[in-house]
C-alpha cells in the first residue's frame, strides 16, 4: 500500500514540476531552461511577501507570486526570445543563461541557508489505506489532478487554448487564420511560468526554498518530458508516473542510492528505443526517415 500511495504522490509531484515546461515547448517550441529558476523565484517572492510585510495574507501572496512568475515568463519571451525565435541552440543557451542568472542572482541577493520555508496549507496528517500521509501531500495530489484537468479543458474548449493548439500543430496555417504567433508564444511562456510558480507553492512547503532546487527541478522536468515526448501533455503525465513509481520501487526493493540511476536509465532506454519519447508525435516522421 505504501508503494501505491507514495508512488501516486511522487508521480503527481513530478508531473506538477514538468507540466509548465511541457506546455511551453508544445506550443512555442521554446525549451524554457529558466523553468527551475522561475520555480524558486516564485517561492522566494511569496516568502518575501509573508515575511517582510507584517500581516500580509498568504493567499494574496500566492496569487501575486504566481502572477509575477507569469509576467516574468512573458517578459523573457517579449524582451529576449522573440529575437532568436526558431534558432533552437540560441533559445537553449539564452533560457539556460537567464535561469542561471536568476538563480545565482537570488543566491547573491541573500537566498542562502536552509531557513527559507513556506507554511503548509493544512498542517497535520491522516491515514490513507493504512499509510500515514500529511495533508499537504494530499493537497499536492488534488491540485495536480485539477491542474491537468484544467489544462485539458483550457486547450480543448477555450478560444485561446484552441489558438495555442493551432499554433502548436501548424504555425503557418494558424497564422493564415489570423492567430498571432508571437502573442501565443508570450501566452505560453506566461502560462508555463505561472505553472512553475504554482508547482513551487504546492511543493516548497514540504521542504525549503534553496537555489539548488532550481537546478534539480529543471533536470527532472527535462527527464520527464524526454521520456513522455517533448510537447505532449499526456506523455508528460504518463512519464511522471513511470519515473515516480520506478523511484519508489527502487527505494523499496533495491536501494535509495539507485533512484537517480533508474531515472537516467529510463531516459537512455527511451532515447534508444523511441527518441521522440512515448507520445512525441512531431518527430516520428523524421525518425522513420
Amino acid at each position, binding site marked *: 500500500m505504501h508503494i501505491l500511495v*507514495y508512488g501516486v504522490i*511522487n508521480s503527481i509531484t513530478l508531473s506538477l514540476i514538468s507540466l509548465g515546461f511541457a506546455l511551453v515547448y508544445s506550443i512555442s517550441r521554446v525549451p524554457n531552461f529558466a523553468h527551475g529558476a522561475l520555480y524558486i523565484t516564485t517561492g522566494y517572492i511569496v516568502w518575501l511577501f509573508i515575511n517582510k510585510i507584517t500581516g500580509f495574507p498568504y493567499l494574496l501572496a500566492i496569487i501575486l507570486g504566481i502572477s509575477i512568475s507569469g509576467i516574468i515568463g512573458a517578459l523573457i519571451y517579449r524582451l529576449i526570445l522573440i529575437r532568436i525565435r526558431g534558432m533552437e541552440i540560441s533559445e537553449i543557451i539564452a533560457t539556460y543563461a537567464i535561469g542561471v542568472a536568476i538563480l545565482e542572482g537570488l543566491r547573491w541577493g541573500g537566498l*542562502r541557508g*536552509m*531557513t*527559507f520555508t513556506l507554511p503548509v496549507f493544512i498542517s497535520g496528517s491522516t491515514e490513507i489505506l493504512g499509510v500515514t500521509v*500529511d495533508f499537504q501531500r494530499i493537497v499536492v495530489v488534488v491540485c495536480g489532478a485539477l491542474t491537468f484537468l484544467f489544462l485539458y479543458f483550457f486547450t480543448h474548449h477555450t478560444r485561446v487554448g484552441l489558438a495555442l493548439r493551432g499554433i502548436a500543430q501548424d504555425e503557418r496555417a494558424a497564422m493564415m487564420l489570423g492567430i498571432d504567433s508571437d502573442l501565443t508564444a508570450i501566452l505560453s511562456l506566461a502560462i508555463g511560468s505561472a505553472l512553475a510558480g504554482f508547482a513551487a507553492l504546492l511543493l516548497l512547503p514540504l521542504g*525549503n526554498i534553496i537555489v539548488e532546487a532550481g537546478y534539480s527541478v529543471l533536470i527532472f522536468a527535462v527527464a520527464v518530458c524526454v521520456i513522455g515526448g517533448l510537447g505532449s501533455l499526456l506523455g508528460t503525465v504518463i512519464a511522471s508516473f513511470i519515473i515516480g513509481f520506478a523511484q519508489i520501487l527502487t527505494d523499496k526493493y533495491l536501494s*535509495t542510492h539507485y533512484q*537517480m540511476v533508474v531515472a537516467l536509465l529510463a531516459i537512455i532506454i527511451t532515447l534508444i528505443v523511441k527518441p521522440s519519447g512515448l507520445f512525441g508525435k512531431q518527430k516520428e516522421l523524421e525518425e522513420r526517415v
Partner: protein
Amino acid sequence: MRRLIGSLLIISFLFFTGSYSYSAEKPITIGAPLATAFLYGWVAERGIKLAVEEINAKGGVNVAGKKRSFKVEVIDTRDLEPGVPVSEALLAVEKLILEKKADFLIGGPVRSEAALAAMDIVSKYKKISIITTGVLTPLLTQKVVENYDKYKYTFRNTNHVGNMMKEFITFLDEIQKPFGFKSAYIMVQDVEHARRGGEVMKKALSEKGWEVIDMKIYPTGTTDYSVGLADAKNKGADILFLWMDMPESAILLKQWSDLKMKALPIGFVCAAEQPGFWKATGGKGEYLIVNVVNGGNAPGNITPWTIKFVDAYKKRWGLEPEGYGTSSSYMAVYQLKEAIEKAGSIDSEKVVTALEDLDMVGVYGRMKFDNKSHQIIPSFNPKEGAVTCIFQWQAGNRVQVFPSTVAQGKVMLPPWVKR
C-alpha cells in the same frame, strides 16, 4: 589666537605622526578560502571577521614590539556547490597567496577533497593554513603525520569523523539505558564523509550490542524519505541515525514529525544547525539531536569565553552562532595571534613551532594541537581539550545535552513516545 592655532597644529602633527607610526606597520593578511554561499563558509567568514575586529580594536598583534593589525581577504571557493571541481578551490587558495599576498590561511577549502589537494599548495608556498570548517576527513592530519616536513604548515582546530563517532557512541551509551534503546536505523547522504560515517557507525553500534536494522543511502537532493521512514517505523527502530549536509534533510525531519515516529533522530544534520531551523520547520524539528562538532557553535557555557563569544557574535551579526565552523574560525585567529606574538615574527617556520607549543583556553575548552598530526586534541572535559557540542532542539532552543561536563539540559523524548 596665534598660540591657539600653533598648539592645534602641534597637536594635529603629533596625532597624525603618532597614528601614522601605528598604521605604517604593514597589516598581517589572513586569507580565507571559503564557500561563502553555504553555511559552513559564511559562518567561518563571520567568525574570522569578528575575531579580527576585536583584536584590531585592542591595538592589533604585537610582533616583536611592533603593533600590526590583521586584514582579511576572502575568496569564494565554491567547493560546496555540486559539480564544482576541486581545481576551482585550489585556484582560490593560490590567488590568495600570490595576488592577495596572504601571510596565513584560515578557514577552508571547505570540502575534504579540496582541502586535501590544497595541502600541496600550502606546503609549496610555506604558508600556514588552519583548517576550521567543513573538512571532517581524518586523512588531513594523517597526511601531516606521514610526511611532517612537507605538510607541517597545515593545522586543524576542529574535529574529524573519527572523533565524532567516538562522541556519538559515548552519547548513545549514556542514553541507551535510561530510555531502553536497542535498535538503530541509519540514513545517510550519498557523499564520501556521510557514507563513511554511516558505515563506521553501523560497525560501532553493532559491536556495542545495538541492532542495526538497515542503512539507507540517499542521493543528494532527495525530496522524499517516506519509504525509509516507514520501514524504520514498521521495524520498531529506537533511534534514527542521520548524516546529511544537504538542505533537503529538512524534508526528512518534517516527514519524521508527520509520521509521529518513536525513533529519536540523532546525527550530523547541517540543515538543523542554524538558529532559524526550528521556526523554518514550524516546530517539526523539535527533539532532533545534532552534533555541531565544536562547542560554541550553539549557545553554551563551556568556558567563560563561550558566553562572551556568543554575546559578541549576537551583537555583531544579529543572531546566535549559526553552526559548525563558527567558533573554530573565530578561535583560529586568536590562536594565530598568540603564536605570532610568541614567535615574535610572522615567519612560517617560527609560527609553526609556536602553534605546536601553544596551549590556551578558548571558546570550546583547552586548545592544544597534537605536535605530530597538528590536530586539535579533543576531550569531553574542557580543562583537558577541545569540547564538542551535541544539542537537542527543545522548545525552539538549541540546548547542549552532551558532553555531560558542560551540558545545559537533558535529552527529552517526544510526547508520543512512551518509555
